[in-house]
């Protein structure tokens, strides 16, 4: 259990955030300058809050009222940043063992071999970090942080500097770390796809304030309705079950109460639940069942709400047994199709446009 309730002024910026989470990954989500990294710095002990407390399993790491401040070196928190910060003069193995050195002897509960195995870094162990790729360096950095047997792992945009292929390789490893080593994780990111896939609890931070604390599906629905949200950040989180795979085409068909979706790759055996994030700007609406078109995913629903901002309209489509699906279309299209509340529509989107980071078998939400 992590509990944060802190206030701090830095120049003209004022931070005032409070949240708590038990199991799984807590994601701090927000744009740059929102205060998420400052919050992380306070949790890590890199800076002191003006007022407030941070508690880990009930124990205060900082509490201004009780005049408690545990220094960074004694907090036992593992940190991983965007840049892996490995020691270039040490080998991968020495870097990993350096982390281990910070764990008190009696508390070295995380096994060296298990970490190396989980992160798939066995072959790198005698190499110099200078000869690793960006993705490999991040794996080693996560391993080093884990081997310090931390009471909390703080990951600050760990994938931000990597290309999409590397992101897709490391995301499942973070999931394995979450599932196999019993360490709470706070994950800072501004990538909707990563946060929705990994987190059990999303804390949306904006302008130094917490706007929302709760599960990812609700968080992104809420985010879509915030006026400050850029339309390219509007996404819907959909749940569907695996129907069949089409190995010849490398596709998986998902069954949704309101229609069919196709995703790239595999999402587990038939019947498993999968979660898909669909960007609102990727959705096209049709009044009739679409046919002879390459877009493969079609969901049928009812217009529940229309939000117009200048030339753009965001349409909220009510689906059966799932959160709403959002579509941003032009006001011209809205008028052409004469959409209003209650209209029946078919929402279609391209399989090739779905971000692979955002597709996952649904086991990540702490259940």
């Amino acid at each position: 259990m992590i509990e944060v309730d802190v206030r701090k002024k830095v120049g003209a910026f004022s931070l005032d955030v409070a949240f708590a989470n038990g199991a799984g990954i807590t994601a701090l989500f927000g744009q740059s300058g929102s205060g998420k990294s400052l919050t992380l710095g306070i949790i890590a002990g890199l800076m002191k809050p003006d007022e407030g407390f941070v508690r880990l399993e009930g124990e205060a790491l900082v509490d201004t009222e009780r005049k408690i401040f545990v220094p960074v070196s004694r907090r036992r928190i593992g940190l991983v940043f965007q840049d892996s910060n490995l020691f270039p003069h040490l080998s991968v193995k020495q870097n990993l063992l350096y982390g281990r050195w910070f764990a008190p002897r009696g508390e070295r509960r995380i096994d060296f071999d298990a970490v190396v195995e989980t992160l798939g870094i066995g072959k790198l162990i005698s190499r110099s970090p200078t000869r690793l790729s960006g993705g490999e360096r991040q794996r080693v950095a996560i391993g080093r942080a884990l081997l310090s047997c931390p009471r909390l792992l703080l990951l600050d945009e760990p994938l931000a500097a990597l290309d999409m292929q590397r992101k897709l390789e490391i995301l499942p490893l973070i999931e394995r770390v979450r599932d196999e080593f019993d360490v709470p994780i706070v994950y800072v990111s501004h990538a909707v796809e990563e946060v929705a896939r990994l987190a059990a609890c999303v804390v949306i931070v904006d302008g130094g304030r917490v706007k929302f604390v709760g599960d990812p599906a609700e968080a992104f629905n809420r985010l879509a309705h915030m006026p400050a949200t850029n339309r390219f950040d509007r996404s819907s989180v959909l749940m569907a079950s695996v129907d069949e795979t089409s190995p010849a085409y490398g596709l998986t068909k998902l069954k949704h109460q309101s229609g069919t979706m196709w995703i790239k790759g595999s999402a587990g055996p038939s019947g498993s639940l999968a979660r898909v994030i669909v960007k609102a700007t990727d959705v096209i609406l049709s009044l009739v069942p679409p046919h002879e078109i390459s877009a493969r995913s079609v969901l049928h629903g009812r217009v529940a709400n229309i939000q117009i901002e200048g030339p753009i309209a965001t349409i909220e489509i009510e689906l059966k047994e799932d959160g709403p699906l959002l579509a941003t279309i032009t006001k011209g299209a809205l008028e052409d199709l004469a959409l209003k509340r209650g209209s029946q529509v078919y929402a279609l989107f391209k399989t090739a446009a779905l971000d692979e980071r955002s597709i996952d078998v649904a086991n990540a939400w702490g259940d």
Partner: protein
Amino acid sequence: MMKISARNVIDGAVKEVKKGATTAHVLIDVSGATLTAAITNESVDELGLKPGVKVKAVIKSSDVMIAVG
């Protein structure tokens, strides 16, 4: 053409189909200019796309970038 929200519907003819692992790139000739669509291999087969087939390219206006000059 059915009534859909996408604002850009452009007539063209398939020039070339390049299949990848799951995604195919379909090059469409639009009066001399070329549009590329990334769609699944399965859609290529289902729509029977091959050079010469007449198609309509559908593009949401939020996906269009503009460069001046």
